[in-house]
Each structure stands twice: as structure tokens, then as C-alpha cells.
């Protein structure tokens, strides 16, 4: 018997997942060391007292657009919100995912009905397509974009689309699609520390440094 969908699924859930998780954790740990080891010079300039800004504040406040900015790049903001929130909801509140997370970290919580997850998935997929379209259409994004950007988009889109197709039993047999779905998630995990997807971790550092810098100068950034 040649490799079957079930073999693939077993590998994906077993060795594949362990491997991917190991690479992701190895890479992220390495990256954090790489970044923090560069250090930051002590600031001899006395910081302003009673500043409205701080590193912590910016960690949160940067999740919201400044007034007027959303209109300037609506697809970036709207599409960005929809797909980020959508990804978060689907990853964290789809029951099979909760079970997977429980296996890794031992915590679980109630999930959302699949009809809700289904709608969110469609919205997320559409938003991802929209931001890709915008990446090609918007001259700034097009100029900034290279292989890494499209690769990162692809490995984000793949788990979403395979998950959706698997759930609806489309295109391929469910078992095979589920195996591909899990493998695509593993690809995402492996790429996480070494592509721009690292931002899921480093943006907290970046925002904190930004907020701290501005905060010392009396500005809430």
C-alpha cells in the first residue's frame, strides 16, 4: 500500500507537528535572543515626568488607527482588521483547534458554533484576497513587496483555504484535505521565525520600544 491520505494525516499529526513546533520554538527563541542581545543604550536625557505615553500604552494603542488614516488606506486597514481578527477567531475558537491547543499547552475554553466560524472564515479568506489584490494594485506596496511578502501571504492563506475546503468536503477527500491543512499549518509554524510573520512576536517589542521612546519625550504614540 502506498502512502495514503491517512498515512499523511498520521504523519502530520505526529512527527510533522512535533517537527514544526520544534522549529518554530527554536527559531523564535533564537530570534528573541538575536534581537535583545543588540541592547539599547542607556538614555542619559532625563525623561519627562507625567508623560501620557509609555511602552505599554503603545503596545495596545497601535492596534487602533489614528484618525484619518483609515480613509487613506481603507483596504489595508479594513482588510487587515478582518483577516487578523478572523484568523484569531478561527484559530482560537474553532473547537478542533481548541483541542489541538489543549494538547500543546493544556488549556482550553469554549468554542464558537461552526456556522459562526464558517462565516468568519469566508470573511477572512475574502479579506486575504483583498489585501493581496491591494498589494499588487497599490504602488507603494508593490514596490515594497518581494518574494518574502507573497510567500508569507501564501502560507497564511493556505491553512485558511485548506481548512475551509476540508470542513466543507470540497475538492479533495476530507482526510487528505485535513492532512494538507495540518501540513500547511506546520509550514506556517516553520516559517514563522524566519519570515516577516515573525511580527506576531516582535511587534510587541517594536511597539514597546516606540512607545517608550515617545513616552520619555512626553508623547503618547
Amino acid at each position, binding site marked *: *500500500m502506498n502512502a*495514503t*491520505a*491517512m*498515512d499523511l*494525516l*498520521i504523519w502530520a*499529526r*505526529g*512527527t510533522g*507537528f*512535533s517537527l514544526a*513546533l*520544534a*522549529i*518554530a*520554538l*527554536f*527559531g*523564535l*527563541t*533564537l*530570534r*528573541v*535572543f*538575536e534581537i*535583545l*542581545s*543588540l*541592547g539599547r543604550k542607556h538614555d542619559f536625557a532625563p525623561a519627562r515626568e507625567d508623560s501620557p505615553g509609555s511602552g505599554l500604552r503603545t503596545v495596545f494603542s497601535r492596534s487602533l488607527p489614528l484618525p484619518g488614516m483609515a480613509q487613506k488606506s481603507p483596504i489595508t486597514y479594513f482588510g487587515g482588521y478582518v483577516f487578523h481578527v478572523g484568523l484569531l477567531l478561527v484559530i482560537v475558537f474553532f*473547537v*478542533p*483547534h481548541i*483541542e*489541538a491547543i*489543549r*494538547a*500543546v499547552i493544556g488549556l482550553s475554553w*469554549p*468554542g*464558537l*458554533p*461552526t*456556522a459562526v466560524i464558517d462565516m468568519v472564515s469566508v470573511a477572512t479568506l475574502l479579506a486575504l484576497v483583498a489585501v493581496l489584490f491591494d498589494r499588487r494594485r497599490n504602488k507603494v506596496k508593490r514596490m515594497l513587496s518581494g518574494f518574502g511578502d507573497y510567500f508569507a501571504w501564501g502560507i497564511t492563506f493556505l491553512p485558511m483555504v485548506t481548512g475551509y475546503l476540508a470542513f466543507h*468536503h470540497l475538492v479533495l*477527500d*476530507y*482526510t487528505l484535505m*485535513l492532512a494538507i491543512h495540518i501540513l500547511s499549518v506546520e509550514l506556517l509554524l516553520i516559517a514563522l521565525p524566519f519570515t516577516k510573520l515573525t511580527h506576531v512576536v516582535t511587534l510587541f517589542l517594536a511597539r514597546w520600544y516606540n512607545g517608550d521612546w515617545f513616552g520619555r519625550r512626553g508623547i503618547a504614540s
Partner: protein
Amino acid sequence: MNTVETLGEILRRRGVSRRGFMKYCATTASLMALPPAMAETIAARLEKASRPSVIWLSFQECTGCTESMTRSHTPTLEGLILETVSLDYHHTLQAASGEGAEQAREQAMTANAGKYLLVVDGSIPMGDPGYSTIAGMSNVDMLLDAAKNAAAVIAVGSCAAFGGIPKAAPNPTGAVAVSSLVKDKPVINVPGCPPIPVVITGVLAHFLTFGGLPELDHLGRPRVFYGESIHDRCYRRPFYDRGLFAETFDDEGARKGWCLFKLGCKGPVTYNACATTKWNQGTSFPIQSGHGCIGCSEPDFWDLGGFYQALSMPTQKLGKVAGAAIAGGTIAGIAMAAHNRSMKASAKQSHERVSTDELEKGE
């Protein structure tokens, strides 16, 4: 062996009513996803089918597949169908034993060369032929010998179809499926541990009715019986969609009959007819009895994580892997950190004071 008497004649001789026969044909038609009108065709063809010779080989198996078909207390039509075939060789069921049994097999193979059906249950050990022999003949030799002149080979049960439990990790006997060895013949896989009786006889009925093999899926299973997943046909599916799950076998959700996904049900990746035909003459099936599907009709089901581990869960222990990865990342990280610090220090050391002269390129 009387091969002149037709199936219809045999059934009537055994007292099966026309009504009962038509009901069986209708059930078979619907099971095979054929239009109801096809029941007539099936009936007409079965009536005229001549009694085929069947050789049943049992290798590394538990006899559960045979049990599955014979355990009914009341004689069933599927049982009768099975009886009407000329079962020329079957370890468990035949009266003959020893030399006589083996002679019967050889005789049937010669007499019906090219026409007999070969049914196999059990997997074949390839590690050492001594793991399983019959009358001093290794399983693999017997299989290849019998397959040579068979019209078709039917691998009954997950062991014959996919290797089954003998093949489960670490597969001590080097067990393989029938299809790994028989390459020059069509092999129909009828997996299940055991398979549903009516599915086995349905395949036989198909062979008898239409004279050929049913349409098979990528795993060699008749599409008509294995076309849909348990999950898709499960009466508990609405609870899955609404996010209502039993968390333990004795909680409120379990009592209310909610979805067993979290308790490890493999229904979503298991393709079989359990949820529609059910077992014990349509009485129930595992999920209905409160236990998740273990996916017994799928390849390597024994190694598909734990029976009680949700399908989406990683199957390996991750604590050590994660710990090792973080430790490795820390070591690599410390090495990179040391590099970065020395890079910064040496850059600082090689700093050449920038005066206004250096602002211009002095090539």
C-alpha cells in the same frame, strides 16, 4: 460441486419468500446508491446467477470478520447469500480439516480456474514466513498461489485491506495488506474491524449481479459503501455544528447525546456505512451507543493517535519536544547573542572619529 443450480433456485429451495428476496434486493440497491428501479434488475440477475466458487483464506486475523457475518441468531438474507455461494475453502466454517481441507482448496482452484472468487481476511507477515503458516505453507505463498487464477480478490476486513492491527506500530511481523502483494488482479478492499455484514454480501451481490467489480475509491473500497464519512451521516452532526460537545463519557453532554468529537471520535475521517446501515440488523452503531468512532475501516487506524484523543490533537507528546526546541533555541540564541555583542564591540573599537573631512568622499 453443483454449479448449475441458480441462486434463485437455491433461495427458493431454502424457503426464502419472493417478498423477502425483493426486500433484500431493494436494500442492496439503495445501499449501492442505485435507483429503486434497479432492485428489479438486481433481483432478475441474482435469480439467474450461477453459484460461484469462493475460496476464503484467513491469515493474520482474529476471525472477527467471519464472526461478524455468522453471529446473527436468526438467519439473514446476507447469511443465506453467503451460504449459497460455493464456499469451497474456509478454515473456520468448513467441515473438512487437515489434508482434506487443503485438497479441497486445490481442487476448487483447478476446477474453477479463472472463475473463482478469492476472499482473504487477515494480513500477511513478511518479516518471517514462520509467523503464520497453514499446512506448512506460508501465507504469502498461499495467497499468491490462490490469487493466480482468481477472477477477483476481495480483501475482507482492515487486516487484509490495509494490514490492520498486525501492521500497527511497531509491526512486529512485517504485516502487509493483500494489495501490497497481489498486483496483477483487481483487489476489492472491504475494510472494517469487522466490516458490516451487508457490505460484504453487497460486494458479492454486486459481483454476481453485474459480473464485474463495483466502482472503487482511491483505497480500493467500493465507493457505494465507503463514499461518505461517518461524521457526515451521523445523527449527532447537528451538535457538532452548534458547538455542543460531550466533554466526558458521563457528563450532561454525553447524556444529551451531544457530539463525541472531543472524546476522540474519528467519524470525520472514517468512510463507512455504519451511520446508515448500522449494526445488528439496524439496531445501533458505536456512536449511538455513546462511544466515538475509532475509525476501524481506515488504514492504520490503530496508530491514528489515541482513540480518546480528539482528531485535531497532535499525537505525540510535545512537552519534551518543546522543551528541547526552546533549549536548542536558547543555545543558538546565546551563541548569536555573543556574536552580536562582539560584532558591536569590534565595531565600536574600529570606530574612526568622523571629522568634517570625512564627510566628503576622499577617493
